[in-house]
């Protein structure tokens, strides 16, 4: 873990909005978020399904379908990516910014060998012979810890275990030495023991290459372990952001507290039931005024009508550096849940 704030960010996102045009009208999936990540640093984006975390990363990569409208700035090393023509963006995808997907089985093409798929990623950005690319693929497969890589390169994805498949996906993402790696729930589909191995691998890679890592996750246990900064998203907006310490020790948003409370812990006596946040996340665009979390919030009565009428903006909280939360409560609430 690098000390945050010491190096200039490699990737900056400012005021990102993503709106999907659907038959039922425009649906705002991401409604103005900012984040930045520096080389060697890990930014975790957490939130429930549908909070817009995956859409944000897809928007950075320019991978959204044509019915998505993206506004805001996406700066890679100061260069604007949003609105870049397809050809230019293609040179960056998989080269400067690479992605690791959640489900390695469906992310890999079942009809080609893993060696071919890793080599393809290399050849798309390097003018080399197939043989050279294959050698590079084996080198990477070996690096991510696939035993007997030169032989296994000729195997197909279905011939690997889940953990080994995820290693292949990581090898494919790393083959061009990307400066930014976006990992979208990289361990969700894996066993707990394998999860730890994969996270350690990502950590090692980051230490070795100084890669900036954006980790999209809903697993706070993983986040606590590897993240430097955390962005908590709710209903397409930032609920809270800060360093990992701010979020875990000085959480200022009731939603963050809810997430932390819902995390099973080994250091406190187990409760008879898992704690949950009451209610369900709003569908995108359904809440237009007030705080999107208000219907599920246990603190609304402390604030009153403002929660329903006025949308809270991110405001500074006491913490290290840029700790901010979007809540009218103003100070750190004591735990009610």
């Amino acid at each position: 873990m690098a000390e945050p704030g010491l190096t200039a960010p490699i990737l900056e996102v400012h005021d990102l909005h993503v709106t999907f045009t659907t038959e039922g009208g425009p649906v705002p999936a991401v409604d103005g978020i900012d984040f930045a990540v520096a080389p060697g640093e890990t930014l975790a984006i957490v939130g429930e399904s549908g909070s817009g975390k995956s859409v944000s990363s897809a928007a950075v990569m320019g991978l959204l379908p044509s019915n998505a409208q993206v506004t805001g700035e996406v700066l890679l090393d100061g260069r604007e990516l949003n609105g870049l023509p397809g050809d230019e963006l293609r040179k960056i995808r998989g080269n400067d910014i690479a992605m690791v997907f959640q489900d390695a089985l469906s992310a890999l093409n079942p009809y080609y060998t893993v060696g071919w798929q890793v080599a393809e990623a290399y050849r798309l950005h390097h003018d080399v012979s197939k043989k050279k690319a294959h050698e590079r693929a084996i080198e990477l497969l070996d690096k991510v810890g696939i035993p007997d890589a030169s032989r296994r390169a000729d195997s197909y994805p279905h011939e690997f275990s889940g953990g080994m498949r995820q290693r292949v996906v990581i090898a494919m993402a790393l083959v061009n030495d990307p400066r930014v790696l976006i990992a979208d729930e990289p361990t969700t589909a894996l066993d707990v023991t394998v999860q730890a191995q994969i996270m350690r691998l990502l950590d090692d890679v980051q230490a070795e290459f100084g890669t900036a890592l954006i980790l999209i996750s809903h697993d706070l246990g993983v986040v606590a372990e590897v993240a430097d900064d955390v962005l908590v998203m709710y209903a397409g907006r930032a609920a809270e952001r800060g360093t990992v310490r701010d979020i875990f020790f000085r959480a200022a948003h009731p939603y963050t507290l809810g997430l932390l409370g819902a995390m099973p812990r080994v250091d406190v006596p187990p409760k008879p039931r898992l704690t949950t946040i009451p209610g369900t996340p709003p569908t995108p665009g359904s809440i237009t005024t007030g705080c999107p979390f208000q219907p599920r919030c246990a603190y609304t009565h402390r604030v009153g009508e403002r929660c329903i009428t006025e949308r809270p903006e991110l405001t500074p909280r006491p913490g290290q550096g840029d700790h901010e939360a979007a809540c009218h409560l103003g100070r750190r609430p004591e735990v009610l849940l």
Partner: protein
Amino acid sequence: MPDLVWFVTRRLFAALLVMLALSLAVYLVFYAIPADPAHLACGKPCTPDRLEQARHFMQLDQSTLQQYLSFLKGVFAGRTFGDGTAAVHCNAPCFGYSFPLARPVTTLILDRLPVTASIAIGAAILWLLFGVSLGVIAALNRGHFLDRLAIGVALVGVSTPSFLLGLLAILVFGFWLNMVPVNGYVPFTESPVDWAWHLITPWIVLAILQAASYIRLTRSQMLEELNLDYITTARAKGAGESRVVLTHGLRGVLVPVVTLFGLDLGGLLGGAILTEKVFSMQGLGDLLITAVGSLDVAVVVGVTLFSAFLIILANLVVDIVHGVLDPRVSHG
């Protein structure tokens, strides 16, 4: 690889059993029809004496089961009708003997096969290329003009009878525009150019009719395929749109397309009856339909069994090709 050998062996054995059962069924059905082949052979006036003679010669005086067993024996060892100087010999594999045509059925089939195969294979290549490319174009332009156009072409293709399209093509391109020959077949060995020139119209006609199902299958498979995660992976790697579609998308589309293609081609090789009739080509379909008209039961049985054999063979080939195209399929 040993898996594959074992798989093919097992499938060939199963195919043999199917062929046996099928031959019995076909034999019984065609011999149950109230027509006496001997009657046709005995000529006019047909005295009971001569009829009996013809029956004996054609071995129709035996019981049905006995006839079937002689048929089976003929397949493996050949058979001889009559004796002495009048004896007619039919070499193994003998699938019956056509007395009206005075030739063994096997020879008849082998004579006609090149014609049918020329029509079928040429048309198949055309419709595969045409159908798959139109299907891909339709999928990529979903809901837009090109998609509607491709679906329209497919709709016309499935609903037009081959004789109508064939006759129209002959009328327009053969007679009015005088661009192509209107009928006849020239063997490839005689003149490859004339061969292709005479076949071009039937190829195109058959291709248009058959391409319809390929357009629809390719389109729907491609739409499904383009929604899969590994397509997103390919884009995330920095692959261009054409590479995403052709290298990553089309690969998955090929598996069902090849299945359909194998079965269609297998079926068509057994005789394109209407097309052959329309273009006056003496292929297997023509052989079959003429035999039905003249109650030449031996030929009908032989051609039917041959067509069935081709379909069974096509199934086997499709299964093997599946294993090659999709690494997840194992021939265990």
